[in-house]
């Protein structure tokens, strides 16, 4: 676990709480969870920011209905949208252009997103991490005072294998784990029956395995994908949908878990 460069700890005094949303695996719905969790926190009266830390494959512009590169001369970043302050690499690079960068550039971009932008005063900053345990994760865990992490998994074993790696990473770098959320947990058909498409109970099992809280189950619903593609997350478009209610409950649980946590102690310094 090596640094890319000299990494002083960033000071972000205007941001009260920073939450990282992570999973080892791609495609489990991290960005959807991040967006809806951020909106649910904002719906509870908080000032919330959302940082899309997926430099190579940013999803937030599409999910939040912000298309095309932002002209910074007329529109300051982070963008105000749906009551959130949002930043993504997708605001700087056209969607058809690939970002082909080595780790130090990812580190630089993320550091700039956090320090060079005026986020204002925030109660919560939700960081949507890319999949894996690579450069973005290292930069953020080494330089940002993260208050906690939320691990997203889908129920099946193949997702949990990678979620375990994410948990192990946070344990190793001593970032508190707020809990595990099982996304795409089940589907309720028109017949009212519950279908466990990707099996069931993986998230709860994982939480038990690591003795961390199980934050809940988010059902799968085609409206989630539809809303995301339309740039209006489900919690805004269909607030009465069970998925939206699950996100509201998730936000409450996250706030409650943060309240029970003791902030990690700063390491003592050595004067030479």
């Amino acid at each position, binding site marked *: 676990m*090596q640094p890319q460069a000299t990494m002083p700890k960033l000071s972000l005094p205007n941001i009260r709480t920073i939450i990282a949303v992570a999973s080892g695996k791609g495609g489990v719905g991290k960005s959807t969870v991040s967006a809806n969790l951020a909106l649910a926190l904002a719906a509870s009266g908080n000032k919330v920011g959302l940082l899309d830390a997926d430099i190579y494959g940013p999803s937030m512009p599409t999910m939040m209905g912000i298309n095309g590169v932002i002209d910074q001369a007329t529109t300051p970043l982070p963008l105000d949208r749906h009551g959130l302050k949002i930043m993504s690499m997708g605001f700087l690079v056209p969607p058809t252009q690939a970002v082909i960068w080595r780790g130090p550039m990812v580190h630089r971009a993320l550091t700039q997103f956090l320090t060079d932008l005026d986020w204002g005063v925030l109660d919560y900053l939700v960081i949507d991490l890319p999949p894996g345990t690579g450069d973005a994760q290292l930069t953020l865990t080494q330089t940002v005072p993260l208050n906690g992490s939320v691990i997203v998994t889908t129920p099946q074993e193949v997702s949990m294998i990678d979620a375990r790696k994410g948990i192990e990473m946070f344990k190793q770098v001593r970032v508190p784990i707020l809990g595990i959320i099982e996304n795409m947990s089940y589907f309720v058909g028109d017949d009212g029956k519950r279908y466990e498409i990707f099996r069931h109970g993986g998230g709860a099992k994982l939480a038990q395995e690591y003795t961390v809280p199980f934050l809940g189950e988010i059902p799968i619903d085609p409206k989630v994908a539809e809303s995301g593609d339309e740039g209006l997350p489900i919690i805004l478009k269909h607030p009465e949908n069970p998925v939206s209610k699950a996100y509201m409950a998730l936000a409450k649980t996250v706030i409650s878990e943060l309240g029970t946590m003791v902030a990690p102690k700063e390491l*003592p310094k050595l004067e*030479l």
Partner: protein
Amino acid sequence: MTENNFALFPNSLKKQGDDSLLIVWNDGHQGILGWKHLRGNCPCATCRDERDKPANPFHILKPSELVQPAPTSLVPVGHYAYRIVWNDGHDSGIYTLESLRNLCQCQECIEKKTTT
């Protein structure tokens, strides 16, 4: 939140003479680590790779290798490690708290290591 009880934690770090570091841990253990020992066990990828290679009998010492290793700074990394910048310019080693404890050279730890 039981898994978030990161038990091992240093209460203080002090220089012990010119050649070693004293770490007082939260369990009361007083760890001693020589700078030479720490430099020789640098966990960065380059140093690990060098250590894994067979010894080169024709190795020619560089001037920087003749200087007694000493840190120029010791910087906390997140809540889990320290990065040591050495007087030979090397700065890519991140020493996790667990690794600092494992590298301890106090009498008690040396005896434990020799019996296991």
